[in-house]
C-alpha cells in the first residue's frame, strides 16, 4: 500500500493530471474553478452511487470529513480495495487533489500530526486527553486521529467501521480488560468532535486564502542524522497552479555535492509532497510552506526506508538579513577551521567574539564560507555571530572539551527484515555537550552537535545477555546506523526465536586517556506488515 499511495500523492514522474491555464484563478481560492469542477465531476461519477449527493456538491460522509492528502489517499485506497471502486490514475489524482483542497486541513490543524506525515522515526505518540491513548493509541500514533476533522456523528460511524472491519480489536491487549465498545460508542464521539471538529475558524480562514507562489530561489539548510548538516540552494519553478519542479544544489559540511531534483504537488495551498532524488537516491518530500510562502520546512526520506532522511528548512534568498545555520555548530579551541554561515543578506564583516578570528573566503548565494581560528584560551560557550548588522545567538559554540554525550534518539525501535519487507533501520547520533560556568556559579550544558564516536552494542539486561541478543539482532555500523538481522524463526536461538533484541547502543568518545560514554536503548522487533502512510 505504501508505494501505491506515495505514487498517488506525490508529484513523481508518473504524474498525469496537470491542469494548465488556470493560474490566474488560483489566487481567488484554494483551487481554480476548472480543477474544482473536474474534481467534483469525479466524485459525482464514482462516489455518489453510495455517498449520495444530498445537496449540490455535498456528499454523504465525504463532505462531513476533512483530512490530510495522506488521509484521503488511504480512504480512496480502501474504497478501491475493499469496496470495488475503479478509478484511472488520472481520476485518482484528480479526486485526491480535490478532496485535499476542499475538505482539507488548515496549517495549524496539521501541526500536531506532522511528525507522522513526515515519517519521523521513534517519535513518541501524541499526548491527547481523555482515554484516547488507550482507546486509539494502542494501534495508532494518534496522529491519524489528530489529522482528521469531523462531527460526532462521523466519529461514531468511524468507530462502527473499526469494529465492523476489525472485530478482534475488542479482544486485544489493552481493550479486552475495559468495556471498549461501550466507551467508544457512547463517550468518545463527542469528545473527539470537541477536540477535532469539522468546522473551525482556522479552516474557514485558510480555505479562502490565495495560494502563495513558491517559485524562486531558496536557501536550504538541513540535517541528516548519521551524515550531518547540508546546505545550498533550491531553484523552484512553477509548472501549474499546484505543481512545481525543484533543482537542488547542495553540499555536505565537507563541501561534497549532495544535489538533487524533485517534482511536487502542493495540496491545500501549503502541503508540499515531492518525489525526486537527493545525492543520487530516490526520495520523498513532505514539506509545509509558511502561509505567506516565505519558508518551506519538513522532512525528506529515502524511498523504501522512511526512517532514513533529513530535516529540510528553506528560506527565500530575499528578505530581511538572517543567519539560518552555522556549520559546524561548535568549534574546538586551538583549531583553525572552515565554517559556513548559511543565510541571506550577509554583508559586512564577521565577528565570532573574543579569541576568534574569522576571514571570509568566499560569498555564495546561500551565505558565507569562512576560515576561522580559535585560540587556545578562547572562552567556551555560545557565541553571538555578528555579520554586519545581523546578530544571531545560540547557533555557534566554542568548547575546550566534551564533558558529556547524549545519544539521540534515547530510545529507538528497529524492525527485522526479510521476505518482501525491508528492515527498518535505526539511526543514532552522539550529541556532545560542554559545561560552561555561568553567573552565580551555575553550570550549564552547551550543546555542541553531533560528534564522531566509536559505536558498539551491549545487552540491555541479563535476559538479553542470556539470549545472545547482541549476536543475533543485527549490526551497528560506525556511522551510528543499526541494520537489523533477517526476520523469521532462527533455529540457532533458544525457542527458535526471531532475531529480536533488547540492546544498549553505546557511543564512546576518547580523548587521550579519558573517555566519554553515552547509551541509548534499542528494541529490535518484528516486522510491521501493515504500512499505512499514517499510523
Amino acid at each position, binding site marked *: 500500500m505504501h508505494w501505491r499511495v506515495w505514487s498517488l500523492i506525490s508529484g513523481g514522474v508518473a504524474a498525469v493530471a496537470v491542469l494548465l491555464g488556470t493560474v490566474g484563478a488560483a489566487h481567488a481560492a484554494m483551487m481554480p474553478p476548472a480543477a474544482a469542477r473536474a474534481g467534483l465531476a469525479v466524485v459525482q461519477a464514482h462516489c455518489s452511487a*453510495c*455517498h*449520495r449527493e444530498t445537496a449540490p456538491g455535498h456528499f*454523504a*460522509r465525504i463532505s462531513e470529513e476533512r483530512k490530510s492528502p495522506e488521509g484521503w489517499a488511504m480512504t480512496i485506497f480502501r474504497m478501491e480495495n475493499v469496496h470495488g471502486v475503479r478509478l484511472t490514475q488520472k481520476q485518482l489524482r484528480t479526486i485526491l487533489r480535490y478532496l485535499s483542497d476542499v475538505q482539507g486541513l488548515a496549517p495549524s490543524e496539521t501541526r500536531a500530526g506532522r511528525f507522522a506525515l513526515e515519517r519521523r522515526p521513534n517519535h513518541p505518540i501524541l499526548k491527547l486527553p481523555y482515554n484516547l491513548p488507550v482507546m486509539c493509541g494502542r494501534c495508532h500514533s494518534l496522529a491519524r486521529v489528530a489529522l482528521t476533522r469531523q462531527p460526532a456523528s462521523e466519529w461514531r*460511524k468511524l468507530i*462502527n*467501521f473499526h*469494529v*465492523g*472491519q476489525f*472485530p*478482534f480489536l*475488542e*479482544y*486485544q*491487549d*489493552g481493550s*479486552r*480488560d475495559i*468495556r*471498549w*465498545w*461501550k466507551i467508544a*460508542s457512547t463517550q468518545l464521539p463527542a469528545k473527539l468532535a470537541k477536540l477535532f471538529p469539522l468546522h473551525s475558524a482556522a479552516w474557514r480562514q485558510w480555505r479562502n486564502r490565495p495560494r502563495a507562489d513558491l517559485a524562486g530561489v531558496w536557501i536550504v539548510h538541513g540535517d541528516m542524522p548519521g551524515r550531518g548538516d547540508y546546505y545550498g540552494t533550491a531553484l523552484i519553478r512553477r509548472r501549474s497552479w499546484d505543481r512545481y519542479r525543484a533543482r537542488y544544489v547542495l553540499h555536505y559540511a565537507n563541501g561534497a555535492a549532495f544535489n538533487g531534483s524533485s517534482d511536487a504537488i502542493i495540496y491545500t495551498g501549503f502541503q508540499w509532497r515531492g518525489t525526486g532524488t537527493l545525492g543520487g537516491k530516490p526520495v520523498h518530500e513532505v514539506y509545509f510552506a509558511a502561509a505567506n510562502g516565505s519558508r518551506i520546512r519538513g522532512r525528506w526520506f529515502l524511498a523504501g526506508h522512511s526512517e532514513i532522511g533529513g530535516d529540510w528548512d528553506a528560506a527565500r534568498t530575499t528578505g530581511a538579513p538572517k543567519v539560518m545555520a552555522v556549520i559546524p555548530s561548535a568549534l574546538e579551541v586551538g583549531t583553525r577551521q572552515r565554517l559556513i554561515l548559511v543565510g541571506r543578506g550577509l554583508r559586512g564583516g564577521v565577528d565570532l567574539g573574543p579569541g576568534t578570528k574569522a576571514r571570509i573566503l568566499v560569498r555564495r548565494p546561500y551565505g558565507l564560507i569562512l576560515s576561522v581560528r580559535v585560540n587556545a584560551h578562547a572562552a567556551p560557550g555560545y557565541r553571538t555571530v555578528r555579520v554586519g548588522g545581523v546578530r544571531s545567538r545560540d547557533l555557534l559554540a566554542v568548547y575546550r572539551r566534551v564533558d558529556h554525550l547524549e545519544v539521540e534518539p534515547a530510545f529507538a525501535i528497529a524492525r527485522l527484515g526479510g521476505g518482501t519487507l525491508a528492515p527498518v533501520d535505526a539511526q543514532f547520533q552522539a550529541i556532545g555537550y560542554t559545561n560552561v560556568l555561568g553567573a552565580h556559579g551555575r553550570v550549564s550544558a552547551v550543546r555542541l552537535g553531533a560528534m564522531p564516536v566509536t559505536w558498539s552494542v551491549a545487552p540491555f539486561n541479563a535476559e538479553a545477555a542470556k539470549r545472545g541478543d547482541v549476536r543475533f539482532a543485527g549490526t551497528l555500523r560506525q556511522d551510528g546506523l543499526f541494520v537489523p538481522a533477517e526476520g523469521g*524463526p532462527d533455529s540457532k536461538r*533458544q*525457542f*527458535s*526465536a526471531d532475531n529480536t533484541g533488547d540492546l544498549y547502543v553505546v557511543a564512546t568518545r576518547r580523548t587521550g586517556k579519558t573517555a566519554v560514554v553515552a547509551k541509548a536503548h534499542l528494541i529490535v522487533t518484528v516486522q510491521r506488515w501493515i504500512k499505512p502512510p499514517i499510523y
Partner: protein
Amino acid sequence: MNLKFLVPVALAGLLAGCGSVLSPGHASHDFIVTGAAPDHLFVINPRTRKVVSDFTIPDAHDYVSVIVPSPNGKVAYVLVNRTRSIAGINLRTGKEVFRANLESPGERLTCMYAFDVTPDGKELIVYVYRTRLEIDQYKVQAPRFLIFSTAGGLHAKPLREFPAPRRVQMVLAKKDGRSFFAIGFNLYEYDLKTGRLIKRRGILDWHRPHHLRPDMLAFWPVTEPTGIFSSPVYSTLTGPGTPSGGVPETSLLTLNLHNGHLAYHDIGRTDALIFSTVIGPQRKWAYGAYTQLTKIKLDGAHWRVADRVNLPHTYYSVNISPNGKDVYVGGTMCDVIIYDARTMREKGDVRLPGCDDQATATLRVIERR
C-alpha cells in the same frame, strides 16, 4: 500482567463423555486432530507418530482455526474462511458433512472463535459478532448466539438465535445438555433452549483478596479428558509481604462442565507465559504450553508449578492422552510434539505435510475403537 499479543485461538468441544468414558473391555485408542493453513485437517496416531489422515477442507480460504470434535469423535467442526464459516468434516472419510456459512442479509457475521457442540452431538452453539453493512456505513449490532442443527447439511441455517453479551471468547456446552457457558467479561450460563441467562459470575471483576484485576485470553478451551476447562489467568498479588506494585501471579481458572463449579488457584509467580492448559485425567497434574511446557501439581488446594522445560519453538495449544501418560503440544508452526507427562522428556514429533502454518488451530484428542 497482560499477554503481549492478541493470539486468537481455538475452542473446545467435547469428547465422548469425560475422562472416565472408556468402557472396560473395549480397547480404544486416542488420536490427535489438528489443522493447518491453507486447508488441512489432520488426524494423527500418536503411537506411530504418523499422520493417518490429511483431509482438505473445502473453501477454507487459507484459514483453519478452532476445532471442535463431535462427542462420538466422528466429525470435526472447524472454523474456517476467516471466521465466517464452520465446516463439519467426517474424520473417517474427509467428506464435508456440515457447513454453516455465517451470513445474514445485509450483515457481516464473524464467529469470535467461540462455538461448541452439545453433548448429544445434535446442535452447535455459535457466538457471532454482527455488523450491518449499509450503503455508506457500518453499524455494529449486538452479538448473538446462533444454534444450528448438526444435521443441517451443507447449507445449515440457525434453528434459534439468542442475544449475547459482547467480547465473549469462548462457548462451552454443559454436560447435562440443558445449558451452555460463555466466557467473556463474566462467566455466563444460558439455557440452551430459550437463551435465558441462568447465572452470571465475575471473571474480569473477580473478587479475590489481594489480587488485582485479572487478564485472560482463553481461546484454547480444551476440555478433554476430564470435562474440566482450564485457562491461565494473569494478575498481580498485593498485600502484606509483597513489594510496592505487587508481584505478577499466574492463576489457573477451572470450570467443571459437569457441575458448573468455577475455581481459581494461584500457581506461582509469572516467570513465563502460558497460553493454554489442560487438566490430566487423574486431576493431579495440569500442563501448560507456550515457549515452555509447564507441569503444574494440583495438590488439594495447593497448586504450584512443578516442572518446566523449554520447547523448540512457540506452541499455542496443549493436550493430553486419555491415560495421562503423554502430553501433546502443537499450534503455531507445523509440528506436534509428544512429551512424557512424568519425565517431561520428548518422546517424538510429527511433521505436518503441506502445512503453511497451524497458527491458532486447536489440538484436540478423540478416541476411536
